[in-house]
């Protein structure tokens, strides 16, 4: 009988964690067929160590074309940690001898990622007014990471991202005049190549940020990291879809653009608000197209989940947000 994931993890941990006597509380958290997240504790005489495994099981090595790949993610997280960016500590990068597939093991960071809790629970009341400024500072540090030390990543421009979005939208073969309006606006308002090319996190928003009562504790999920216009990250976190009802607080439903920008500029970096606005429009459309993609995956299987189907019906949310951005009926 082949070894279970738990047995393989215990064997793996023993090779690099001195004193470890085994593992406990292993539980699979989430993910689809191609990528898994596990939580487990390393049993150690000095006290258990909470850890997270992120891996692509054997046979699922190839990342989809947009993904940086788990190897690159591990390096990015290590670099972020070394630069003082709130980040889990990468403890081990999987090797073939581990027989666990590709991926890495990192320290587990306590905190919350569920937006509604972060935006409503009393526990986070003191953190909320500080978050936008803090996150501006975190983004500035991410954008300041030196390119030569980073892994190879895709190089994206506004024009190439418009092209990909348009291709994805056309492949859905379902007319959505508001999406065409947004694509046309993006083409007409493309600010051109960024004067500066930096590391872009690519998915800096609720869900990928661990928040504690003291503020941001860790940046997760570098899967969509690439090189490009740093203003993209600032625009993406302002997309209305991540405000969870708090629509007058553009940054994640907890803060203002001014606070985000002030935190960014306090780290000796400049914000270009017009570019940020451009990327907010792009991000809104991107989430809309992604919702439609969920619906397509629901139809084509193998995951005919009701949740996927219902996410398809959320694309109209991005249509009203695009109209509020591009054809406002009143001052917002």
């Amino acid at each position, binding site marked *: 009988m082949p070894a279970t994931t738990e047995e393989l993890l215990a064997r793996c941990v023993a090779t690099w964690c001195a004193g470890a006597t085994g593992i406990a509380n292993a539980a699979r958290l989430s993910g689809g067929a191609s990528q898994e997240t596990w939580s487990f504790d390393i049993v150690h005489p000095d006290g258990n160590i909470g850890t997270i495994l992120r891996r692509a099981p054997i046979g699922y090595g190839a990342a989809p074309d947009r993904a940086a790949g788990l190897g690159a993610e591990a390096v990015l997280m290590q670099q972020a940690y070394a630069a003082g960016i709130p980040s889990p500590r990468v403890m081990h990068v999987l090797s073939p001898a581990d027989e666990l597939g590709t991926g890495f093991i990192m320290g587990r960071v306590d905190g919350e990622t569920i937006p509604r809790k972060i935006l409503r629970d009393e526990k986070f009341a003191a953190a909320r007014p500080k978050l936008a400024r803090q996150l501006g500072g975190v983004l500035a540090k991410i954008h300041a990471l030196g390119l030569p030390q980073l892994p190879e990543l895709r190089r994206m421009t506004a024009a190439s991202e418009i092209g990909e979005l348009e291709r994805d939208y056309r492949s859905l073969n379902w*007319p*959505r*005049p*508001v*999406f*065409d*309006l947004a*694509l*046309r606006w993006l083409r007409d308002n493309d600010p051109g190549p960024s004067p500066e090319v930096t590391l872009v996190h690519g998915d800096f928003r609720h869900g990928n940020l661990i928040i504690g009562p003291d503020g941001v504790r860790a940046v997760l999920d570098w899967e969509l990291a690439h090189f490009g216009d740093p203003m993209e990250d600032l625009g993406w976190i302002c997309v*209305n879809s991540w*405000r969870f*009802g*708090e*629509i007058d607080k553009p940054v994640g439903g907890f803060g203002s653009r001014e606070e985000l920008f002030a935190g960014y500029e306090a780290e000796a970096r400049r914000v270009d608000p017009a570019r940020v606005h451009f990327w907010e429009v792009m991000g809104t459309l991107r989430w809309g197209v992604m919702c439609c993609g969920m619906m397509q995956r629901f139809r084509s299987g193998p995951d005919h989940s*009701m*949740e996927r*189907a*219902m996410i398809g*019906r*959320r694309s*109209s*949310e991005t*249509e*009203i*947000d695009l*109209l*509020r951005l*591009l*054809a406002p*009926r*009143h001052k917002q």
Partner: protein
Amino acid sequence: MQDEPTPTELIQAVAGFLRNDITPAISGHNAFKLRVAINALDLVARQLTLEQGSDAAERERLARLLGKDASLHDLNRALADAISKGVIGLKTEGVAEHLWQTTMDKLAVDQPNYASYRRELEVKKN
């Protein structure tokens, strides 16, 4: 002619049963999925109630904007193409109003609690 109760009434009855009788008995991930399921049934009930009226009005607006009649799908395709090519845009008379009305009608079915939608409804009233 099919008999009563109507599909809307049946779906509402099932959603009510799931909401009132089953929800208290379920916990964990299945409770989340049950909520999604109830939302789906509510959405279908809203669509069955609202779709005919909004589709007819949308088709009329599109026919006027494009100067031709066709199926709702083909008219939407034609508008999307014209916008993409820049032949029609927000400056074209009636286009912004049409896109707004169509989008509001979609949200009324898909997500009537979405904050942007509720805000736009309020603004329209005032």
